[in-house]
């Protein structure tokens, strides 16, 4: 049973990657998942202009 917007977003994300969620899992996940996505988006909006490209280059073995 979908009870709010975050649960609907979570259900759609699960459907997009072919992952089955029961109602209990959906209820637990929705706030944590959507909250995290929103925090990352807000942080990028706040600091995005100065954020360099992510380090995800092939052959990278040492960080940073």
């Amino acid at each position, binding site marked *: 049973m979908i009870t709010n917007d975050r649960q609907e977003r979570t259900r759609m994300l699960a459907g997009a990657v072919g992952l089955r*969620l029961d109602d209990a899992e959906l209820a637990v996940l929705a706030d944590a998942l959507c909250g*995290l996505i929103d925090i990352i988006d807000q942080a990028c909006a706040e600091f995005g202009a100065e954020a360099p*490209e992510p380090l995800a280059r092939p052959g990278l073995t040492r960080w940073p």
Partner: protein
Amino acid sequence: MAVKALDPLRASIGELREALRARRISIRELVDSHLERLGQVNPKINAFTLPDAEGARTAAAALDSELAAGELRSALHGIPITVKDLFATRGQRTAAGSLILRDRVTGHDADVVANLRAAGAVILGKTSMDEFAFSPTGLNAHYGPVRNPWDTSRVTGGSSSGAAAALAAGVGIGALGSDTGGSVRLPAALCGVVGFKPSYDRLSRRGAFPLSWSLDHLGLFGRSVPDVCAIFDCAASAENRLGEPRPPAARELRCGVIEDYCVEVGGEVGARWQEFIRAISAAGVRVTAVAPKKLKLVIAASTAIMFAEAAAVHRQWLATRREDYGEPIRMRLLQGALIPATTYLRALQLRRTIAEEIGALFETLDCLICPTNTSVAEPIESVDAKTGGRMIRNTRLAPLLGIPAISLPIPARGLPVGAQLMGPAGGDAQLLAAAAVVEKIIGPAPAAPL
């Protein structure tokens, strides 16, 4: 001159090496004393998933023969250590604290295990851990909690829970663990031992079951900084060893206290931290406060990266064996599987921008310092997923940036509190040299009462 009585369970690596050379103790006797201690304490603390008395005694006999012939492989020749259940050990079960891998027997040693065996270390057994290293508490839904040797009703922290508990209880002289968000430094702090997480990839990760590729680090436990250095140099490949950095004078050390990591800590932690700052300041260490503004991004960036990468590792089992995970781990993996690629990539961007700000601090500072743990070890029944998140607030920065970090026990009465020192990427030797100076100032930690 009177010879100092040797306590084989608590002696330093240097003291044991001298005793072995002088034939004051054999390796077999040393290993037997640790196996006896293991048998005494493990029923109380649940630190071992797989004790290996037979393997340890076989190795000890061979190493005694070499010693009798005058051959000493390294500083670790005959030294008993333990290995987290995350690491492949040839011909033995490596379950990574899980039900899913309960029957998996690996046919090879992890690189670090092979290096330590080649150096003459004797492996006493595999230590307990949180399921797939994906929790910081020391609780495990399948195999039960590891109990803290300072108070067996309390948690050890995790995920290298058994490693820290065993060492604190006097089993092994050192231990091998892993640290993705604090899994070496937090249990080290809560159990009153030294825990070191080197720079990213300074120790080979091959043969360690992954949690999160870009955050995973191997790490080490010991009872002192010199012991940790000795173990590190035997675990690392030749090009990654520490060398011999010049130990700084206390007055040369410049430490930046991370203000945001000193607030919202438990009363005992706060009091102990103030004592620590007073002690190092009085010894001449230059201490200043720092407040990097991007620190508030660390938890979100680290969580998005860790959960997404972990879900990629577990994607197939999430579809076919979901019920075989403990509840908290299953929910974290599901959350990771649903993180959009754009969110993961933006988290990597945030990591880079945090790294730039923190990296700039090291232009004028040798170390960033803060309490390792935000509270002393909590009662087992009071710990849940939310508590776990708070426990590792101060340890997630270092693996996110790949910088070296070490936790030293602050000596005092009561439950243990750790002081964390972090250094610039690649500055492992300098950080350890600084930690040795600080350790001399604050003195050795007491042994657990168990």
